[in-house]
C-alpha cells in the first residue's frame, strides 16, 4: 500500500449518484453516528455550562433562589480587580513557558524515544508515569521535596549547586516558576505520548527514501519527520495552550495560589474568589472570561493553522 497524497476535504463519496435513497441513507447513518455523542455532550456538558454562564449574571451565594440579577456587573468587577489581572498575567506566563520550554523538550524526547534501543518500552512507561499520578499526589510529593532543606535542596548541594538553593515555595518571586517545573514534570508525558503516536504514523519508507538520497539523520528529521508530524504538533499546541489556560489542580495543592497571590492562575482565582467565597455568580463570570480566552485562542488558532494547511503544505495528509 502506498500512501497517497490527497488534498484535504476531498474525502467524500466519489462516484456515487446522489439519489434520494442515498441521501436518506446518509441521513440515517449520520444520525446513528452523531446522535448519541451529541445527546451525551449537549445534556451533560453544554447544558450545565450554559446554566453556569447564566449564573454569572447574578450575585448568588449558592443558597436560596437566584434572585439578585446584576447583569454584567460581575464582569466589570473582575476586570477592575488587580488580583484578577495578576492572575491573568500568571496564567499567560505559564502558557508561554509551556509552549517555549515543553514544546522542544517533548519533541526532542519523543524523537529519541522513537528510535529502537534497549529499554525503550521501559523508558516510555517511565516518562508517562507522572501523567498518570493524580495531581494531588504530585503536589503533595513535590511540596515535601521542595521544603527548605528538603530533598531538592540536598540534591543540589550534593552536585555542587548549593549556592543556587532558594526557598522554592516561600519566595514570592520564584514560586510561579516552581509551579511551572512541577507542572512540566506532571504533564510532559502526555505530550510525548501524543507525539509518539504521531511519529508512529509516519511510514518508515519515507525516511529510508530520504536517507538513501543522502540525507543525514538530522536532515531526515528536519525535512521529513517534523513536517509530517506537523498535524500532531498542532494538536499538541492547541491542547497545551488550552490546558495551561485552565491549570488548577497542581497549583492549588502545591501553593494554593500563594504565598499571598504570587502564583495565582485564573482557575485558582475562580475557585478562591468565586466558589470558596460563596460567590457563584462571580465565579461563573470568571469562568466565562476564562472560556472567552480559550475561545478566542481557539478561533484564531484554527484560522492560522488552516491557512497553513491550504497554502501549499508539504503533503495533504493532514487533519
Amino acid at each position, binding site marked *: 500500500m502506498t500512501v497517497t497524497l490527497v488534498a484535504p476535504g476531498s474525502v467524500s463519496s466519489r462516484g456515487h449518484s446522489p439519489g434520494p435513497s442515498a441521501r436518506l441513507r446518509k441521513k440515517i447513518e449520520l444520525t446513528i*453516528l452523531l446522535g448519541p455523542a451529541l445527546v451525551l455532550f449537549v445534556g*451533560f456538558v453544554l447544558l450545565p455550562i450554559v446554566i453556569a454562564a447564566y449564573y454569572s449574571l447574578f450575585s448568588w451565594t449558592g443558597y436560596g433562589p437566584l434572585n439578585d440579577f446584576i447583569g454584567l456587573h460581575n464582569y466589570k468587577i473582575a476586570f477592575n480587580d488587580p488580583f484578577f489581572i495578576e492572575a491573568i498575567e500568571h496564567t499567560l506566563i505559564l502558557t508561554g513557558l509551556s509552549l517555549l520550554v515543553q514544546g522542544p523538550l517533548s519533541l526532542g524526547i519523543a524523537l529519541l524515544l522513537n528510535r529502537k534501543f534497549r529499554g525503550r518500552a521501559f523508558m516510555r512507561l517511565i516518562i508517562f508515569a507522572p501523567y498518570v499520578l493524580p495531581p494531588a499526589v504530585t503536589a503533595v510529593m513535590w511540596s515535601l521535596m521542595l521544603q527548605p532543606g528538603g530533598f531538592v535542596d540536598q540534591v543540589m548541594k550534593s552536585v555542587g549547586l548549593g549556592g543556587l538553593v532558594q526557598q522554592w515555595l516561600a519566595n514570592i518571586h520564584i514560586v510561579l516558576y516552581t509551579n511551572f517545573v512541577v507542572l512540566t514534570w506532571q504533564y510532559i*508525558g502526555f505530550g510525548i505520548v501524543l507525539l509518539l503516536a504521531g511519529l508512529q504514523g509516519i511510514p518508515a519508507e519515507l525516511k529510508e527514501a530520504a536517507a538513501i538520497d543522502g540525507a543525514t539523520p538530522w536532515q531526515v528529521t528536519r525535512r521529513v519527520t517534523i513536517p509530517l508530524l506537523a498535524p500532531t504538533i498542532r494538536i499538541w499546541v492547541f491542547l497545551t495552550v488550552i490546558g495551561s489556560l485552565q491549570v488548577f489542580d497542581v497549583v492549588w495543592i502545591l501553593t494554593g495560589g500563594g504565598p499571598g497571590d504570587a502564583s495565582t492562575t485564573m482557575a485558582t482565582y475562580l475557585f478562591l474568589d468565586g466558589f470558596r467565597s460563596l460567590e457563584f455568580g462571580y465565579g461563573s463570570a470568571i469562568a466565562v472570561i476564562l472560556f472567552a480566552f480559550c475561545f478566542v485562542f481557539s478561533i484564531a488558532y484554527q484560522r492560522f493553522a488552516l491557512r497553513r494547511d491550504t497554502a501549499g503544505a508539504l503533503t495533504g495528509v493532514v487533519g
Partner: protein
Amino acid sequence: MRRKYTILPLTYLVAIVIGGVTVVPLLFVFVDGFRTTADINNSPTGLPHPWIWANYSSILTTAPFWQFLGNSALIATVATVLAVGLGSMAAFALSRYVFRGREALFTLFVSGLLFPIGVAALPLYLLLERLSLLDNQFGVAIPEAAFALPLTMFILRPFMRAIPGELEDAAMVDGAGKLRFFVQILLPLAKPAVVTVSLLSFVTSWNQYLLPLLVFTTTSHFTLPLGVATYQSQYSQNTGAILAFTALAAVPALGVFMFAERYLVAGAMGAVKG
C-alpha cells in the same frame, strides 16, 4: 544503517537523565511506603530503615482499598468505552462525510475543551439529582464520558481524515457500506489514535476528584482519589501509609498504560505494512 547508531550514546544519556528526573520523585512515594513515619520525619531522603511491609500489606488486605479500586476501574472503563465508542463514531461522521454544518458541529464539540469541569459542577450536580443518579457510579461515569468527548474527537478526527479516500472507495467497490468500512477498516487503521484517546480518557477519569466528591456520599462507592483523601485524613499521622496508598493507587493506571503501549506500537506497524 550504521549511521544511526552513532547517535545512540546521546540517546542513552538523555534517556537516563530524563528517566532519573521523572522516576526519582515516583520512587520517593513508592519507597517511602516501606518506611515508618518516624523514619521519614527523621531523614526525609533516606532509605527505609527499618524496612516495613506493614503499610502496603495492611492496605492490600483490607476491603476499602479494593472497593475503591473496583469503583475506579468500573467508572473509568465505562467512561472510556462510552467516550471512545461514541466519540469515534462521531469523529468518523465528522471526518468522512460532507454535510452542512459539519465544521460548526465539530467546533461545538471542541468548545467543550474550553471549560474546566469545575465550573459546571453545581448545575451538573442538580441535573444528576433530578435523574436520580446521585451516589451512583453511572452518575460519575456518564458526565466523565461527556467531558471526554471533546478531546477524543479532537484527536481522532484528524487521524481519520488522514486515511486515504482510495481505501474507502475500494471498500465501496467491494460492496461494503460506509459503516462496514468504519468498523472493519478505518478503526483498525486508526488504532494508535484510538488507543491514545482511550488511555487519556481512562487516566482522566481515574484521577477525577471533584465529580466523585459531589456525587458520592457512601464511602463504599468512593473512587481511589477520594479514598486517598479520606485515608489521608484518617491516618494523617501515618505518612508512610499514605504514601503507600498513593503508590498503590497509581499502579492500575500505569498497568493500563503498559498494556495499551503494546497496541500503540502494533497498531502503527499494521498501518505501515498495510
